[in-house]
Structure formats: structure tokens, C-alpha cells
């Protein structure tokens, strides 16, 4: 059987694939994304595809692959780049990488929250340009987590891991919202399930950790920001499209909210002349949520094992239910 790998992946993952003796491997062996034409050519006739979140696997790619394709394994927990309906129609299985990236992503979400509310990049800029003269009582003051209300949009694996990490910082109250209440998950934090509007109104920190679906697309928009406190901070480490970026820009510039931290944007990368990059109270990271050496290595091994299991028609370690 033949597998196609759309990028250079951590060597532990490639080793797992090549040493299994299950398939031959064709690979776009580069750190840069595979050009569309190369992808369409490369998938032709393959039984398995190992891809990244930057590869749009739509009808065109699936048609180009043909009827051999039985397993798509993505090196991510997000699957919004996969045309799931088309994939399901063709009876193709999907493997993904939840759980093993939860810790690293939750850690980065908290890192981003703290960097934003305590103004780390801003203060580093001030230091560089000579703005640090001496210790001053009210210079560079930020917002602390003590006695705050934190609202989590999407109390899934990552949302819960974020809440767990925020708890000892003295958070007074956790709120959450989503498609439905999750009492088993919420009890650890005594978190209240509230409508989106109420979460906006009452939170000092809004953390977005939901998946991107037709329901969540553009959810954080003008109406949402208009309800938030002037002293509040928005953090998004889910997917860029959950946030309406033009509305966010207006909210930040007009002082409707205090600051925002984004690890995900639309598009990625964000063009360097994008207005959000010019704001002192907006911290933008280049989608590094799961970027620790240990996690990326583990993700590559898991995605390799998902692919191998799919090729052999066996149970996958992490299969997406379609």
C-alpha cells in the first residue's frame, strides 16, 4: 500500500511510519507547505494520506486521490480543514490528535492570557525604545487574575485544562458556554453554564477554546464585544474564524474591551500590515499552541499510528467519529 505525507514531520513520526513495513511512503519532504498542484498529483492512487491543518482536503483533493484512499490522518486536533461530509460519503476514515496536545495548548493559552493582561510584549517594547527609566508606582500596570471572573467558551478538553491552570491564580468565578451544559466537566471548577451574552457581560477574562463549526463561526462579533467590560481581556486559541477580526479591531481601538490575545487568525499567517498587529493592546502569536518538542513529537507518532491502523483496517488510537 502507498501513503502520502504532505510535509516534513518530526523524525519519530516518520520512523514509526517507515519501520512498520505496512506501506511505502511518498513525502513532500520540506518545511514549506506543499503546493496545491503537487498535492493533487501526490495523492493520486494513494491508500493513506497524512496531512497538516494547512492542507485543505476538499472534494478536489479527494477526487484526485481516487477510490484507493481509505484513511486520512491529520497532525492536529482541529479538523475544520477537512471536508468531513465528502469524506464520510466515500467511507474514508479520519484519524486526529486530541489529548496529547491538550497540555501544551492549555499551557500556551494561559501563557498568552498572562502576557496580554500583564502587558509583557508592550513592556519589552518600552524597554527597547528607552521607555524604562525607573521603578514607578503606576507604570505598566496590568489586570490581575485575583478575584476575577473567567468565562470559557467551549469547556472541552482544552477548556478544562485551561480552567485547571487558572484556578490557583485566585479566580473567583468560572462561567462557561457551549452547545450544551457539561456538568461532569464543570463541577471541578464550580463553573456555571450561561448564555453567550451573559458570559460576555460578566467575565473579566474571556477564553475561547471551542472548535470551529458553522455555529461558532464569527461568534465573537460586534454584539459580543459591545457586551464585554471595558476592563476585560479576550483570549482566542481555538481557530481564527471564531472571531470577527474587523469587529475586534473596532472594539480594541474604541476601548470597548481592554486587550486581546490571539494565537489563531484569519488568514494564517496574518499579513504584516494587518491593523491588529499595530495595536499595543493586541498580542498576536503565530499559532504555536501545541509547539513543544515533546508534544509535536508525540503528535507525529500518534498520527503515524492512526494512519497505519487505518491502512490495516484496525482500530485507530484516535479516530474521529464521522
Amino acid at each position, binding site marked *: 500500500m502507498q501513503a502520502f505525507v504532505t*510535509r*516534513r514531520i*518530526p523524525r519519530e513520526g516518520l520512523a514509526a511510519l517507515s519501520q512498520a513495513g505496512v506501506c511505502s511512503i511518498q513525502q513532500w519532504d520540506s*518545511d*514549506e*507547505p506543499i503546493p496545491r498542484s503537487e498535492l493533487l498529483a501526490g495523492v493520486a492512487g494513494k491508500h493513506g494520506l497524512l496531512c*497538516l*491543518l494547512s492542507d485543505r482536503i476538499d472534494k478536489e483533493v479527494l477526487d484526485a486521490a481516487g477510490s484507493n484512499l481509505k484513511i486520512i490522518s491529520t497532525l492536529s486536533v482541529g479538523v475544520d480543514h477537512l471536508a468531513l461530509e465528502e469524506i464520510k460519503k466515500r467511507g474514508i476514515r479520519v484519524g486526529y490528535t486530541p489529548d496529547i496536545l491538550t*497540555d*501544551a495548548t492549555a*499551557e*500556551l493559552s*494561559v501563557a*498568552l492570557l*498572562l*502576557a496580554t493582561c*500583564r502587558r*509583557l*510584549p508592550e*513592556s*519589552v517594547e518600552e*524597554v*527597547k525604545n528607552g521607555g*524604562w*527609566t*525607573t*521603578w*514607578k*508606582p*503606576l*507604570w*505598566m*500596570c*496590568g*489586570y*490581575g*487574575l*485575583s478575584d476575577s471572573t473567567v468565562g470559557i467558551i467551549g469547556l472541552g478538553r482544552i477548556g478544562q485544562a485551561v480552567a*485547571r*491552570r487558572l*484556578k*490557583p*491564580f485566585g479566580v473567583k468565578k468560572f462561567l462557561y458556554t457551549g452547545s450544551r451544559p457539561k456538568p461532569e466537566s464543570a463541577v471541578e471548577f464550580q463553573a456555571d453554564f450561561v448564555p453567550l451574552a451573559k458570559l460576555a457581560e460578566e467575565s473579566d477574562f474571556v477564553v475561547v477554546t471551542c472548535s470551529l463549526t458553522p455555529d461558532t463561526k464569527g461568534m465573537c462579533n460586534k454584539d459580543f464585544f459591545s457586551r464585554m467590560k471595558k476592563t476585560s481581556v479576550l483570549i482566542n486559541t481555538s481557530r481564527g474564524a471564531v472571531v470577527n477580526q474587523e469587529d475586534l479591531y473596532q472594539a480594541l481601538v474604541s476601548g470597548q474591551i481592554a486587550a486581546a490575545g490571539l494565537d489563531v487568525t484569519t488568514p*494564517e*499567517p*496574518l499579513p*504584516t500590515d494587518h491593523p491588529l498587529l499595530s495595536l499595543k493592546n493586541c*498580542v*498576536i*502569536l*503565530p*499559532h*504555536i499552541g501545541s*509547539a*513543544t*518538542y*515533546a508534544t*509535536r513529537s508525540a*503528535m*507525529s507518532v500518534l498520527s503515524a499510528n492512526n494512519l497505519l491502523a487505518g491502512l490495516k483496517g484496525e482500530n485507530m488510537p484516535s479516530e474521529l467519529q464521522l
Partner: protein
Amino acid sequence: MRTLGRLRRLKTTLVPEFHGWCKLQASHAAGKQLPRIYVTRRIPPDGMKILSQSGLCNIEQWDSDEPVPRSELLEKVAGIRGLYCLLTEKIDAEVLDAAGPSLQVVSTMSVGYDHVSLEELKKRGIRLGYTPDVLTEAVAELTVALLLATSRRLLEAVDEAKNGGWGTWKPLWMCGYGLTDSTVGILGLGRIGAAVTARLKPFGVKRFLYADTVPRPDMAAKIPAEFVPLDELARHSDFIVVCCALTPETQGICGNSLFSLMKDTAIFINTSRGGVVNQEDLYQALVNGQIAAAGLDVTEPEPLPTDHPLFKLKNCVILPHIASATVATRNAMAALAASNLLAGLQGKAMGKEVPL
């Protein structure tokens, strides 16, 4: 309606000030001179209010956001009873001599007092107030913020997003070191050190170690953390966090002898005082790959000159001493320092006093 609101707010400020003024007039009428105090900076409103509404002192102040020049300080302290200072003023024999025998209390708006000569105060029977506890949460929070910003390369990544270095998602780009399954070593398990460990715990830290002048069994048991010698802390820690006071014993304690024993994947974080670290040794350790990265909120001197070699390193994050910088915390510090000062003037027990 707005006028009514404004009038109400005016009343809230004016009435207590009026009462303070009345007390002042009463003392003058009674022939008593109120003790004079000197405040070395413009301070947050919660502190100023306590001082001005007390009616217990005449206040002179360097009402600026910039530090008081030394010459001005030496002139203005002559004959004062109480001195309210910041960590930027060196309170040594020269200042205390200039103040003269009237000085009975120094109140610093900080928890560190390495800028104050304890020996000289003790000699003269002068009391010292400071501000522990009220800043513990903000400082521990910023310490963890700095640790994460360093280990997960946030500042580097922010730059890449701005300067076009951000391409598409890549598996091994901008990878950092996670806290999961790590060993964290705390140098100085005091209030702030303990608060830092409480915040790091849910990140999946496997083991906490600490080094200190003496074991701290009560603090350590709650975490739990193991008491080890400094070189063992160096050898086994993935993250070292310095939270000790600056004393003659800790001056320069983080130097080549520490860095040479550390793992080359280890992260070094200092939010205590710049003087605890030998900065030349740190620079060498970072450049030679002896340790992976460092995050500093405190340096020697402050501010660190913008051409300092440490600024050139991508794996060194330097913050301008902002650990206690939230509006609520700075106001609480100011209020506590003010209360400490007033208590000292009245010969009463202070909220927080340094035992001399």
C-alpha cells in the same frame, strides 16, 4: 443628574480632607507642632488619602513620577519624623545623618528592603515598615507569566508575527519546553516562592525542589517540595525560579557555579533582585548554550542600559521590574506603607514591620 453625581463625589473627597484640616488646626491651636514626614514620590491615591486625611502629620512630597534627586532628598529630610520611600532611594548613613535625630520611622513601599541599611536604622533606633503579603499574588502571577513567556518563546514569536517570519503552520517551528513532567527548583521558598509553586502545580510539574538558607518544612509540606543543596537544584531542575531576598549571602549566588551545573534545556527565571545574579556569567551561559533561556524582571542596574549584551539575546527575556504592577496591588502597597508610617509616628504596632 451629572452635576449631582459630581457634587456627591466632591463631597466624598472634601469631607474627610476637611476633617483632617480641622485636626491640623486644632493641633496648631493647642500649640502642638505636627510631625513632619517626607514622601519621596507621587504615590497611588489610596496611600495619599490615608496620609492626608489622618491629621497626624505635615506632609512634604516630591510630587513627581520621576525619582527624587539625591541632593533634594538630603535637603528635604532634615528634621523629619517619618520617611515614606520607594525601592529607588538608598536609605543609608548619609540620608539618616541628614535627617537627624528626629527621624523615628522609615516606611518603604516594597517588600524588598535591600536599599535600606538595617544596621544604620538599628543603631539609631529607627523602625522600618514594608509591604509583604499584599503584593504576593501579583508578583507570583508575573513570575509565572515570565516563566511561560520564556519557555514558550512568546516574545520571539510576537516578533516573527510582526516581521514576516511567520509562514504557515510548521511542526517544529517555534517549539519550546513545556512544564508537563518537569522538575521545578525554587531558590527561596518564602511567601512568593510558595505562591509560585501553587500556580505551577496544575501545569503537570512532576517534582518541586527548593534551596534556601534553612529548610521550610511547613511551606514545603503543602506543595510538597524537597529541600536540596543549591548544586542539586541546579543539576535536576528543568526550571529554576529565584524568589529569595537580596542579602550578603545571596549576592551573586547565581553565577557560573550554578549555570555550569544546569541542564542545557533548562530555563532560569529571576524576579527577586538583580544583585542575586552575576549578569556576565548569565550572558556566557546563554551564549554558550549552557542553559536554554532566561527571563529576568530585575537587573543590575535598573533600568538596564539598552545597549547591554543581554538585550541582544533571543533566548533572554527582560521585563522592566513590573512584578507587582497591577493598579489594585500598587494601591494596596501604598495604603499599607502609609498605615505603617502613621503607626510608626504614633509609636504603635505597625501592620508590617521589619524586625531589626
